[in-house]
């Protein structure tokens, strides 16, 4: 895709905020599907069409990151396998790294880069684990996780074993953050269920849905412990799960994971979306974590029922300075928006008009992003059912589903506009991430589909709302994961965080776009180590690399 016209208009000297352009009723978000034209040719493979095993329904994620530091966001897509090949120790497909040429097209550099992946991969997250300024890549998968170290020359090396990250379990979500604020990125990895394709679980009454006989799990299968790895430096990690307080006595089915400072106390907390179980929220208490999901109001829904947590994100949807949470769930249930009330969260899904519409859809990848740059966070949700068999019945849901785009109605509620915004594909979505692939300040989308293509949606929303993009870097040159950006306009504040890992087994563009409508905002940064900085004299309409001093 080509850079948007007008990108070259530099407003030198100050962040010139054109209040007149930030009118209400500006054009709603609009996307164009450009995968073919952009050369993003990828076919996901995940077992057989009828999905007799749960392993066949869960892949795969997508990571958006700039692996070659050319200023253009690249795309890493995760692939699956077939049960037969898995058992035979083969894999005919591979993950794929697409390099953004900067002209609107991508080239597949997987082989050259050496990031073909493991046995049957699930998700991916990018983070500069050795703080050398080059983003590394961590890939989760069935019975194997892989850490690819970015050599900085367009190639990666598998350093999993050396790093102490070998993992025979079924890993799903992964997210980086510097939880102990020692300047190094630590890693949280979720695990799903214990599953052996050579000895699949015996059928029980739990292997059904609405009386339809289906694949078994996750209910009825043993869960597995999620892991926290502390980055010791020099390329080594240590599994500190127990010492850090992440062993709760409950083995749940972990999927989406995100680090976020939900309580705004300056350190990253850890949220894990658990499938068919209560979620986990590990509050960072300094030396250790305390699991507080249920008492914080994000463990269960408003009726005290567990949901099938898949994807997750945190964002300040009402611009009150507090990070709210969204979690995607199963069909016959709603996606849940947890409104951060300060002391705890309340389930505000219906008030935000997120609940009813999602009832027949099964949600996966999700993220808050300002699609139309009106200063209010919109919400994307990737949809697709787990069971192909639902198409044989009249239960109101289908295997292939369209995705949702919820347009934020000025902090009062959402309006679902996916179809009219151009998200018309009816496929079986899984991972999803945003990335500003043409650096025009309008976040684009990439969505993966099980047994299907990856789709790239270019954001073509007509907007003149000024913006600045922030590429926040530590002194080492590594992305400042965990940094918090607060934009204040009048008496409202708008909080964003730099993250590595969220959604469903995916990873968004780590840069932050600031575009609160109204007037020129005051932008302050809080770096991961807690130091703060006010930004001044930024030119609107472009990205700025801000390095911590």
């Amino acid at each position, binding site marked *: 895709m080509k850079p948007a016209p007008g990108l070259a208009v530099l407003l030198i000297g100050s962040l010139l905020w054109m209040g007149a352009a930030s009118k209400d009723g500006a054009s709603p978000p609009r996307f164009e599907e450009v995968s073919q034209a952009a050369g993003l040719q990828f076919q996901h493979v995940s077992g057989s069409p009828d999905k007799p095993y749960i392993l066949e329904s869960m892949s795969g994620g997508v990571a958006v990151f700039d692996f070659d530091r050319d200023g253009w966001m690249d795309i890493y897509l995760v692939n699956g396998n077939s049960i037969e090949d898995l058992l035979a120790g083969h894999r005919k497909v591979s993950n794929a790294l697409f390099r953004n040429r900067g002209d609107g097209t991508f080239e597949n550099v997987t082989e050259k880069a050496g990031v073909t992946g493991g046995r049957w991969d699930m998700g991916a997250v990018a983070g500069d684990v050795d703080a050398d300024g080059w983003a590394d890549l961590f890939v989760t998968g069935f019975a194997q996780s892989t850490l690819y170290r970015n050599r900085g020359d367009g190639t990666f090396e598998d350093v999993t074993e050396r790093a102490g990250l070998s993992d025979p379990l079924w890993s799903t979500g992964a997210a980086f953050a510097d939880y102990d604020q020692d300047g190094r990125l630590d890693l949280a990895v979720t695990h799903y269920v214990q599953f052996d394709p050579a000895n699949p679980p015996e059928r029980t009454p739990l292997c059904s849905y609405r009386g339809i006989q289906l694949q078994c799990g996750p*209910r009825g299968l043993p869960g597995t412990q999620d892991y926290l790895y502390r980055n010791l430096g020099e390329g080594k990690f240590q599994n500190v799960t127990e010492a850090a307080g992440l062993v709760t*006595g*409950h083995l749940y089915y972990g999927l989406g994971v995100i680090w976020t400072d939900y309580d705004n106390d300056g350190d990253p907390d850890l949220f894990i979306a658990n499938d068919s*179980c209560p979620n986990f929220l590990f509050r960072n208490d300094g030396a250790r974590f305390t699991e507080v999901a249920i*008492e914080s109001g994000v463990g269960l829904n408003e009726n*005290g029922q*567990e949901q099938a947590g898949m994807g997750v994100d945190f964002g300040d949807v009402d611009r009150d300075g507090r990070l709210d949470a969204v979690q995607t769930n199963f069909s016959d249930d709603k996606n849940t928006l947890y409104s951060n009330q300060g002391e705890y969260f309340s389930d505000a899904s219906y008030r935000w008009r997120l609940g*009813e519409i999602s009832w*027949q859809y099964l949600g996966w990848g999700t993220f808050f992003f300002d699609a139309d740059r009106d200063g209010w966070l919109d919400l994307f949700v990737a949809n697709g059912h787990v069971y192909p068999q639902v198409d044989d019945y009249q239960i*109101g849901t289908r295997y292939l589903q369209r995705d949702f785009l919820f347009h934020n109605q000025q902090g009062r509620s959402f309006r679902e506009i996916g179809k009219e915004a151009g998200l018309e594909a009816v496929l079986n979505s899984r991972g999803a991430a945003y990335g500003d692939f043409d650096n025009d300040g309008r976040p684009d989308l990439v969505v993966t589909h099980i047994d299907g293509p990856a789709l790239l949606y270019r954001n073509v929303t007509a907007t003149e709302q000024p913006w600045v993009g922030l590429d926040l870097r530590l002194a080492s040159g590594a992305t400042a994961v965990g940094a918090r950006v607060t934009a204040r306009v009048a008496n409202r504040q708008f909080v964003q965080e730099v993250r590595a890992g969220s959604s469903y087994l995916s990873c968004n563009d780590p840069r932050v776009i600031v575009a609160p409508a109204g007037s020129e905002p005051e932008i302050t940064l809080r770096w991961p180590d807690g130091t703060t900085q006010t930004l001044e004299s930024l030119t609107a309409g472009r990205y700025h690399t801000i390095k911590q001093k």
Partner: protein
Amino acid sequence: MIEAGRFREAQDVVDQGLEQAPGHPELLYWKAVIALNTNRSEQALEVLTRLVEQGRALPPHRLLLGQIYEARQDWQNAAESYRPLATLGSSRQASLFLARVEIRRRNYDAAIATLKPWSSSQNPPEVEHLLGLAYFGKGDLPTAAPHLEAAVRQSPRQAGYRYDLGLALLQGGRFEAAAEQFERATELDPQWPEAFLYLGRALHDANRGEEALQAFQNAGNLNPQLPLLHHHLGLLQKGRGNFDEAIVEFQEEIDSGTNYAPAFHHLAELISRRGQAERGRQLAERAVELDPGNAEFRMLCARLALESGQPEEAQAHLMVALEEEPDLGPAHYLLGRVLQARGQSEEAAREFAEARRLGDLKSRRTPNP
């Protein structure tokens, strides 16, 4: 003359006979029959009762009297009318009638005992049917279904047998098989709204929502006032995520004057999601008023009260809910939230822990070794 429907002439003949032979039992029997057929059941009852009181009632008198009581839903007197004949073991018909009445009176064991002398390996369909109904009433579905199936096998064109078998299959979770029976019942009796209603229910449960909708519509066309029609339509629409339509159905059910508590509960749940908090609370409270021991209804009231800033009221509802169902995890969770709102954080923590423990137990999750 009676068979030809010439009741007035028959009445004259009987009256003349009674003038000549007052109290003649056979003539009195026909007098009662004529009275019944000319909408004078009171007179028929009086005639037959007098015979019984005088100790002159013959088996046909008792059978007719029992049927009159049955028509009046006076099960006690119906049973007393049939019982002497059934007890003697001399009248198969009386035993069948008594068993039917005992089933109506929910005396299922008594019904089975009444039928026992007439049971064999080759029961006639009416005996199989009644045995099936009795076991169904007892909740013994594995025993009920074969009896009802035997009745249907022997009398496949009896819509009622198929209907009752459908109910048993539905109750037993065999939704497709139940739908088949109700479908055949509606074919045999296309004017039977209840059969269409339960056909709709079975199809709904068999994940055939569109066909269920059609069946419900057919039921409504035959009898728009059919009890529970709107309720089932509401549940169908709610289950399919058609919330606008579900609200309309539950509202219509309530507007029809129902006192069926779940209708109020479902409507309360749906509209409170749409910001109609106060009306939602009123409806939820009405559901509790109608069924005070229902923990689910109590929980909705509690949540709505909590959301309206009335934790004391919420707590009162939850205490009742937990008295009814102490292992209801979500109620412990809500109680935790209530206690949290009231500043009782330690008590709240205990409730949250209990909610988690019960959730793990219910979902049979393995503990961390």
